[in-house]
């Protein structure tokens, strides 16, 4: 016979005002199996919990029902109390008589009846509950960070400084991301590389950071605490252990005029190149698509010049496996491609990007401004190298544009456009900046003052209105826009036009996300677990996100999120074993028919196709098997299992039917 204790909480006035708690206690005490029933003003308080513990001991209870607020609030509290009294915590249930009763009904009689019924159901369930033990999963106490931009760098340094080994995987030949290519950053106008490169060097030299550059994640297996990641190290054709970074190879390379990726096409680089002088690692890579030796078997000058013998034309991609306990995705962003586009996201044919040389995007302009850029920091127009005297900056190109397919605001453009006007004015004293905008979004610390400075002190002209069309006439760009505040159309003859293109997730992120079972939103940004309260976690345990990969944001926010993700990683790695809630799926392998419908249906890939063998090693049967590290207890397998074999611990079919039957 069961020995159940029922504890009814008043929750001050929240429950007691509507539900007659005395009558409830009187009625539920009569339920078969109930040994004691009491009520108290605040069950979650210290005296309330003490009451539960003392009753469990005194009455030798083997099951507890607490009738109170939502289990979301205090289920853990009450279960800890039960555990302290020696009762398995999973033999305690919460009946929600507040959110589902007293807060939504006003009739006292009806509410009281309902509260009694709710408790009746929970009592029926508890009688069928099994004692459960939390699941322990071993943890590999190492982390991986995918992406070597400022967010990835910050996350890696935080985790490594906390004492854990970090494997960083970066797609480009050097870490640094987009920030390494910026000129100066808002609102301080700090030189971007000056503040970033020390961090890059820290990463390169950190004893606990293993850096794979020019590499990508090929495959991921496993689960939280136990990931095995296969990394593809792309062939550099340069042995970076032998190479001294002297640069003679690049100087000697005869194929000098290739569009530079780092300069976004504004400059050129040789076939063997270091992306920029401060690269980490400071080693070159050969572009296998243009190198004469690799494409046609001719040349070989770089190998001849290399005193260290580091050139290796026979290099090949390598696959390496790394075991880690947690993964941080910090893959960053790219800019929206402005010209004609295929697919649901349309381009801006009306702006002539790609058609007119002097219509460029904001990252391209950054390279022109950068002191180490293709024009040594002088603002020169791409078409003829002349200094532009009238530069038009257009905001919201791609962003906030339902018709083109991107409805969101890219957050940083208002700030960097103001910055661009200031840097332009500082370099071209007799130049005039014109900005076409819809709104100014400058919500950070010292941000609004920064934008006002651009207008009030550096003379930028701001027109509130969008630009309809750009055409080219006699070497000038005719920009047709509007000034809605003055109520007039405005035409400007510009020498250069800079388009603030929308921030988009980096290429290939959706494929990477799929490898890790992380979701993406409709625009391709990585999905956080909860937009308010869990911005750096994902719905896959052990995988965290940070930076612009999650949504458009600036450097301070990316750095903050990176540290947040690092902190979450440290929680995961903090113990040698991870404890998981045991309320997960259970499959009776004796009865399983191995139809594998659950395997197909499981959204977390938590079900394996396993084989059962006898002592001789012969195959006895196949079965579906739940991976206790991955299962999130969603119940999908239960609903598809045709033999009613799969079940959820803590929410078994038997418990559920008992609840229903108790009402009939």
């Amino acid at each position, binding site marked *: 016979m069961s020995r159940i204790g029922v504890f009814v909480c008043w929750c001050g006035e929240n429950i007691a005002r509507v539900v007659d708690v005395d009558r409830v206690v009187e009625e539920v005490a009569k339920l078969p199996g109930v040994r004691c029933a009491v009520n108290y003003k605040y069950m979650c308080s210290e005296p309330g919990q003490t009451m539960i513990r003392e009753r469990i001991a005194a009455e030798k209870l083997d099951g507890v029902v607490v009738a109170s607020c939502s289990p979301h609030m205090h289920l853990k509290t009450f279960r800890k109390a039960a555990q302290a009294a020696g009762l398995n915590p999973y033999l305690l249930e919460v009946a929600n008589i507040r959110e589902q009763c007293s807060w939504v009904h006003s009739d006292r009689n009806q509410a009281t009846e309902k509260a009694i019924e709710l408790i009746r159901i929970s009592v029926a369930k508890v009688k069928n509950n099994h004692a459960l033990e939390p699941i322990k999963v071993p943890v590999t106490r190492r982390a991986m960070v995918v992406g070597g931009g400022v967010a990835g760098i910050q996350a890696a340094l935080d985790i490594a400084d906390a004492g854990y080994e970090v494997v960083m995987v970066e797609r480009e030949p050097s870490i640094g991301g987009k920030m390494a290519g910026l000129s100066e950053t808002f609102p301080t106008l700090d030189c971007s590389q000056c503040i970033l490169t020390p961090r890059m060097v820290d990463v390169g030299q950190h004893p606990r950071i293993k850096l794979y550059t020019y590499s990508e994640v090929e495959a991921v297996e496993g689960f939280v605490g136990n990931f095995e990641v296969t990394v593809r190290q792309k062939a550099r054709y340069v042995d970076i252990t032998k190479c001294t970074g002297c640069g003679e190879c690049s100087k000697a390379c005869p194929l000098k005029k290739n569009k530079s990726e780092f300069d976004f096409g504004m400059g050129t680089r040789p076939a063997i190149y270091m992306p920029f002088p401060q690269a980490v690692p400071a080693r070159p890579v050969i572009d296998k698509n243009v190198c004469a030796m690799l494409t046609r078997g001719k040349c070989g000058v770089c190998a001849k010049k290399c005193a260290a013998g580091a050139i290796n034309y026979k290099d090949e991609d390598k696959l390496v496996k790394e075991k880690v306990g947690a993964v941080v995705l910090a893959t960053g962003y790219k800019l929206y491609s402005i010209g*004609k586009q295929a697919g649901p996201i349309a381009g*801006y*044919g*009306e702006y002539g990007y790609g*058609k007119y040389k002097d219509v460029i995007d904001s990252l391209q302009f950054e390279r022109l401004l950068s002191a180490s850029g293709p024009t040594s920091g002088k603002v020169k127009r791409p078409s003829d190298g002349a200094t532009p005297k009238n530069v038009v900056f257009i905001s919201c190109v791609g962003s906030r544009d339902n018709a083109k397919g991107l409805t969101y605001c890219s957050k940083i453009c208002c700030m960097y456009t103001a910055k661009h006007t200031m840097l332009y004015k500082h370099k071209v004293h007799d130049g005039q900046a014109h900005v076409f905008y819809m709104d100014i979004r400058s919500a950070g610390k010292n941000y609004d003052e920064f934008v006002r400075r651009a207008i009030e002190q550096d003379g930028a002209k701001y027109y509130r209105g969008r630009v309809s069309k750009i*055409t*080219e*006439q006699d070497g000038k760009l*005719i920009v047709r826009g509007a000034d809605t505040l003055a109520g007039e159309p405005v035409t400007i003859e510009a020498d250069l036009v800079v388009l603030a293109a929308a921030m988009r997730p980096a290429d290939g992120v959706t494929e990477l996300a799929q490898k890790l079972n992380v979701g993406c939103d409709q625009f391709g940004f990585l999905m956080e677990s909860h937009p308010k309260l869990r911005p750096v976690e994902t719905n896959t345990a052990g995988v965290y996100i940070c930076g612009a990969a999650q949504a458009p944001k600036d450097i301070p926010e990316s750095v903050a999120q990176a540290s947040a993700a690092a902190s979450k990683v440290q929680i995961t790695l903090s113990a040698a074993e991870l404890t998981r809630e045991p309320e997960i799926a259970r499959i009776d392998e004796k009865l399983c028919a191995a139809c594998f419908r659950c395997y197909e249906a499981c959204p977390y890939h938590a079900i394996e196709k396993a084989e059962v063998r006898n002592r001789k090693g012969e195959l006895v049967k196949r079965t579906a098997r739940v991976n206790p590290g991955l299962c999130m207890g969603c119940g999908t397998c239960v609903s598809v299992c045709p033999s009613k074999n799969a079940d959820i611990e803590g929410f078994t079919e038997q418990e559920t039917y008992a609840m229903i039957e108790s009402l009939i």
Partner: protein
Amino acid sequence: MNLGYYPGCSLHGSSDDYQQSLKACLGALGVSLKELDDWICCGATAAHTLNRKLSIALPARNLALAARQGCDELLAPCSMCSLQLKKARKAMAEDLALSAEMATIVEAKPGGARVLNLIEALERVGLETIKTAVKTPLKDFKVACYYGCLLTRPPKVAEFDDCEQPESMERIVSALGATPVAWNYKTECCGAGMTMASEETVLELSHKILADAAAHGAQSIAVACPMCHVNLDMKQSAIEARYGSRYGMTIYYLCDLVGLALGLTPRALGINRHFAGRTA
């Protein structure tokens, strides 16, 4: 190849040189045109300006005739007509109540005939076919391809080419051996139906088009709309007088150019009935 043919009022009126050119050119390409019997005006600007229901009903009547006469495809060489027919067709397809209302008003079920503008019709014939049929390539012809407003806008209704940087006419012109020039006023408005009610508007807007075409080295402008032709051709001398410029710009219908390349004479194509530029 057979195509249903909806001339529209202009092609039977003062722009019947367009019809002459079209028939000669398409005839030479082996396209036979079956004129829609008892077609009525599409309503043009007047209907959509003054009465929404009428602006859908008049095209609906023509679509009903097309259905009854077994025309699945209808060539409408005037871009206003082609757009109004496409607009009505789309509005009815998306709103069944409207479709039913129109069926009552025009006393027949409007069908879903596909509407083609001149360029779409030539594309149906096929660029390769046209290229092969060229007898006298139009080398030394520097042509500014002018789309005007209604061939490509609004994009969701016209569903034709790219509304910002269209290239379909250029492809045909190139196939004829001519040189299409790159210029800035491909899709800018000529002033449309304001020719009589607000002549100033047409003079100003069409002047910009002529000036830009000339500035980019064009000797002629190709059009696929009779209204654009009137504004650029018939009004050219008025524009020259107003703005003190001399253009002498020949305004060809696209089918004029195709016809010339196929070896037809300017007279056969009605080019001698144009007002400005080279008319022989």
